[in-house]
């Protein structure tokens, strides 16, 4: 590297944001635990079925940690609570954007938390309310812009997109849109609640809409 930046300038800016937090709890021994491998299954269950129990398990593991990390970063216990709420709300709403092949559940939740903390710290320091984090760290899976649709009916491409959906969403979509079953008929056939059928279809359609919308831009 031929250019050497004077590190102190960036350093000084960074250090301001990471002033040591005051400890509010007495120190005790550290409980050793490593991330349970089920976390990513819980996330997928939330994505596919809006599974509240799976979410509660995610919350039990991540919630207290996020609260502690955020309270320390923002040097404020109440902020820690708010950030936990915002992060876990995004986890609940965006779980369908988690791609297990791309990385661990902990990494995904970490990026969600980092973005929430970044926006909160900016809001504290500046007069601006815009959230920039999702532009700076695109958390959503990137949609390929390389294959714009050629045909007007988009049948082939749509079929390919449908194939990329989780199996249970594919099944619901095919049954309702291709085989013309009603939600109730499909629910009965699969022996699951109608609400589950509806949410699977909604998730599937949301995902398809996003991909088609981005390609049509």
């Amino acid at each position, binding site marked *: 590297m031929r250019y050497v930046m004077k590190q102190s*300038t960036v350093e000084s800016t960074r250090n301001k944001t990471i002033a040591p937090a005051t400890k509010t709890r007495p120190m005790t021994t550290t409980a050793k635990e490593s991330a349970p491998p089920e976390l990513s299954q819980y996330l997928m269950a939330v994505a596919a079925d809006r599974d509240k129990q799976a979410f509660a398990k995610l919350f039990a593991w991540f919630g207290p940690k996020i609260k502690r990390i955020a309270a320390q970063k923002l040097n404020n216990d109440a902020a820690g609570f708010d950030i936990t709420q915002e992060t*876990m709300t995004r986890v609940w709403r965006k779980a369908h954007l988690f791609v297990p092949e791309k990385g661990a559940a902990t990494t995904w939740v970490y990026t969600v938390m980092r973005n929430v903390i970044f926006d909160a710290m900016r809001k504290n320091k500046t007069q601006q309310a815009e959230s920039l984090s999702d532009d700076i760290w695109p958390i959503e899976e990137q949609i390929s812009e390389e294959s714009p649709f050629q045909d007007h009916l988009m049948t082939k491409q749509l079929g390919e997109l449908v194939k990329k959906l989780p199996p249970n969403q594919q099944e619901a979509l095919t049954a309702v849109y291709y085989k013309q079953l009603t939600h109730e008929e499909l629910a009965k056939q699969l022996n699951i609640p109608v609400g589950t059928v509806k949410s699977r279809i909604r998730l599937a359609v949301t995902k398809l809409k996003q991909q088609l919308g981005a390609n049509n*831009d």
Partner: protein
Amino acid sequence: MIKHHPSSKLLAGYATGELPASIAIGVAIHCKMCDQCQANVDALTAQLADQVFDAELTEPMAYENEQFDLASEAEAPMDMDFGNMIAAITADDEISEQSMVRSTSITVKGKNFELPAPLNNVRMSNWLNIGKLSRSSLNLDEGAIHSHLLHIDADGEVPTHTHKGFEITLLLDGSFEDDMGTYHPGDFIELNGEHNHQPKTKEGCLCYTVADDALQFTEGFHKLFNPIGSLLY
């Protein structure tokens, strides 16, 4: 071919979310154009996540030990409030739609440029023109740190100058040369007060710049420009 990359320190700061927005935007734009830096950031992010969430990984990373010294605190017992929070969150069945990949385009001197996504929601001033130089300042509200879009028209140059603080230049479009070589889109160039340079461009270029102070022109006649240095950067 991108030859100039952000330092590992900046990549780490980007992964932790602790860089000022203006610098983080520069790194983000570079990473969109540079698969290798993006892969480095992804790996760093996965490591950080492990480190933050996994109490067993206690070995601190060199650049991180000050931020995440959390191992000394025990896990708090699940709060009563958390139960309510879970109920409130899961009661809402809303799904966040993926934000559309949209792009903002700008026109400078009759030429159209598509801006990278990290600049989507950043407010920009009108373009100010000084000869072949055009500049729009970005309103990120970060005190001494200023970021701009800088366009240099074909055959234009910035008089020899130095920087009192730091300067980051990210080439978005076109190319420019200085005594160190030629730069291409995606190149991420960090400069400090010890370096004099005189960028010139044959074909014209558009840059994203971040600096924490005005530039100082260092040569003869151009010293007259010093009062406008702060207009440029």
